């Protein structure tokens, strides 16, 4: 009996054609782990940390390394929070990395025009707003494509992945802009609050707010209901189109926040450095328990999940494995995570 087959997401459409792996006879502890993926992921994360610590205790366990893991996780994590909302609606945002780059390039050019390295707080404020708004613009494009033009999210965001990156290269002539105001790097990027990097604090505040919205507000409930059953949501009087547009705008805007954080961290744009962001954010969210098929989304899970690829990256560098293996590993981990997601759904849904 498929009473609830209204999910129109790409993932679900694909899933429908595949046999659902049967975990009906799995032991109880396996089932309860499947039901709480973020806890399972926490265990895996601790295992990863343990392995790298044993292999290279002095380098991996150093506070410098933890700080750099936390900073990387903060920037990509903010983008992954946006991805979590998009996945929750049964959509997908492949454009996050390019959108982030576009935002930073436009922002850096504006700040360069306002004094560059020696510019003041006014320029930094304008730069941050520009970064967020320019990125949100691509979110709006995605949202309009997905709703009014009915382009599947996979294709719409793949298209804007190309367009936003191309536009960023046109604006910057393909060269990174390094004239980011020094105060942005010194007073935001290197700043600590009670020993914790300010960028990490910003990321935690974003995650806390977004997590609360997803968990306890009508906006969150509607997000999951659209991912669960778009037709049903529409019939319940939820303005599905408007909601979806706002979701993609949110994802774009958060990519912009991540971009501004990255400018503060590195004091330069990083045009070539974000091709894997879509993979990383999707893997992070799905590892944390957000469903690729929509309807289930958790920001807390994403925070834990995003630490896995970031820790892998750092660990591989320290252990001396070629960093390309990190991309390989994240790809493999994503496939495993989606398989586990299917197991989970197979074990819970009555048919």
């Amino acid at each position, binding site marked *: *009996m498929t*009473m*609830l087959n209204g999910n129109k997401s790409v993932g679900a459409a694909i899933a429908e054609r595949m046999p659902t792996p049967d975990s009906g006879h799995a032991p109880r502890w396996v089932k309860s782990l499947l039901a709480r993926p973020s806890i399972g992921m926490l265990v895996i994360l601790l295992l990863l940390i343990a392995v790298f610590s044993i292999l290279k205790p002095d380098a991996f366990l150093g506070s410098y390394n933890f700080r750099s893991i936390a900073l990387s996780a903060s920037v990509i994590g903010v983008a992954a929070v946006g991805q979590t909302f998009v996945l929750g609606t049964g959509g997908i945002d492949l454009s996050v990395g390019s959108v982030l780059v576009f935002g930073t390039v436009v922002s850096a050019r504006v700040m360069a025009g306002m004094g560059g390295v020696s510019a003041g707080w006014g320029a930094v404020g304008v730069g941050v707003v520009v970064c967020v708004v320019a990125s949100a613009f691509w979110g709006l494009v995605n949202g309009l494509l997905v709703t009014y033009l009915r382009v599947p999210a996979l294709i719409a965001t793949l298209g804007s992945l190309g367009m936003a990156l191309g536009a960023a290269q046109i604006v910057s002539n393909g060269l990174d802009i390094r004239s980011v105001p020094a105060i942005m790097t010194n007073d935001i990027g290197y700043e600590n609050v009670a020993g914790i990097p300010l960028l990490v604090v910003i990321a935690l505040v974003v995650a806390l707010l977004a997590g609360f919205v997803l968990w*306890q507000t009508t906006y969150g409930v509607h997000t*999951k209901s659209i*991912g669960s059953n778009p037709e049903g949501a529409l019939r319940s009087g939820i303005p599905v189109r408007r909601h979806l547009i706002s979701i993609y705008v949110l994802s774009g805007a958060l990519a912009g926040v991540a971009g501004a954080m990255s400018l503060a961290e590195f004091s330069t744009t990083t045009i070539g450095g974000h091709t894997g962001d879509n993979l990383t954010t999707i893997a992070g969210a799905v590892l944390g328990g957000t469903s690729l098929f929509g*309807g289930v989304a958790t920001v807390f899970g994403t925070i834990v999940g995003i630490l896995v690829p970031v820790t892998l990256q750092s660990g591989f560098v320290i252990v001396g494995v070629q960093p390309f293996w990190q991309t390989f590993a994240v790809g493999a981990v994503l496939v495993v995570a989606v398989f586990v997601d299917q197991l989970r759904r197979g074990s819970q*849904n*009555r048919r």
Partner: protein
Amino acid sequence: MTAPVQDSTATVVVEARQIRKAFGHVEALRGVDFKARAGEVTALIGDNGAGKSSLVKILSGVYTADGGELLINGTPARPSSPQDIRAYGIETVYQDLALSGDLTPYENVFLGREKRLGGILGLLRVVDRRTMRAETAEIFDSLNVRVKDHKGRVATLSGGQQQSVAIARAAMWASHMVIMDEPTAALGVAQTKSVLELIRRVAERGIGVVLISHNMPDVLAVADSIQVLRLGKRVASFRRGEAEVADLVRAMTSGDAPEEQS
């Protein structure tokens, strides 16, 4: 199942007069009459393509009629959207695509009409889960709907339980009428029985229930009034006890039963 006292003087909540609807060259409804009363189960039956779903979609505001009149509580209504019709206290249970499987029963019951906390948190659209859970438990209790897990995902419930949640949701919000398009089509025998009992309990709350079904014994068991459509027109209408399966089938296929006033 016990029949309530026959009472054809109950208030008419919805009346359709000479409703017409065409899709291109297909005339789905060719001047159909229809009446549903408060506190009664009114069955709408007919062969495939007779126009049942089209009529129900007009009653639930999904389509607008090309011609004819729709009276709700005696006053002419021109609903142009499902939202309009819900403002009249009329709710629809769709056969599928009804619930959000990943949400809890109470989130489904309140979907799109969530209760918010008071004060500033309410302005921030923070939901009041405690109240929503309590009110859901109340309506479930009063309709004798039992779900094994009030905080779990609806998708984990059986088909019959899911349909019961959908019907309870409609009953919660409907002050006048609940429309159900084949609510038992996907269910097994035992589940069908309990959903039919639930349908009667909804009617006993004084709400009008419109029920589309292809199952004649079910219709005879549960309906106070049976209205038969054929080729876009009402060809017969029976009160409880006036017809047997053979009469219904004859009306559906040849349409020679005399038109009666219900």
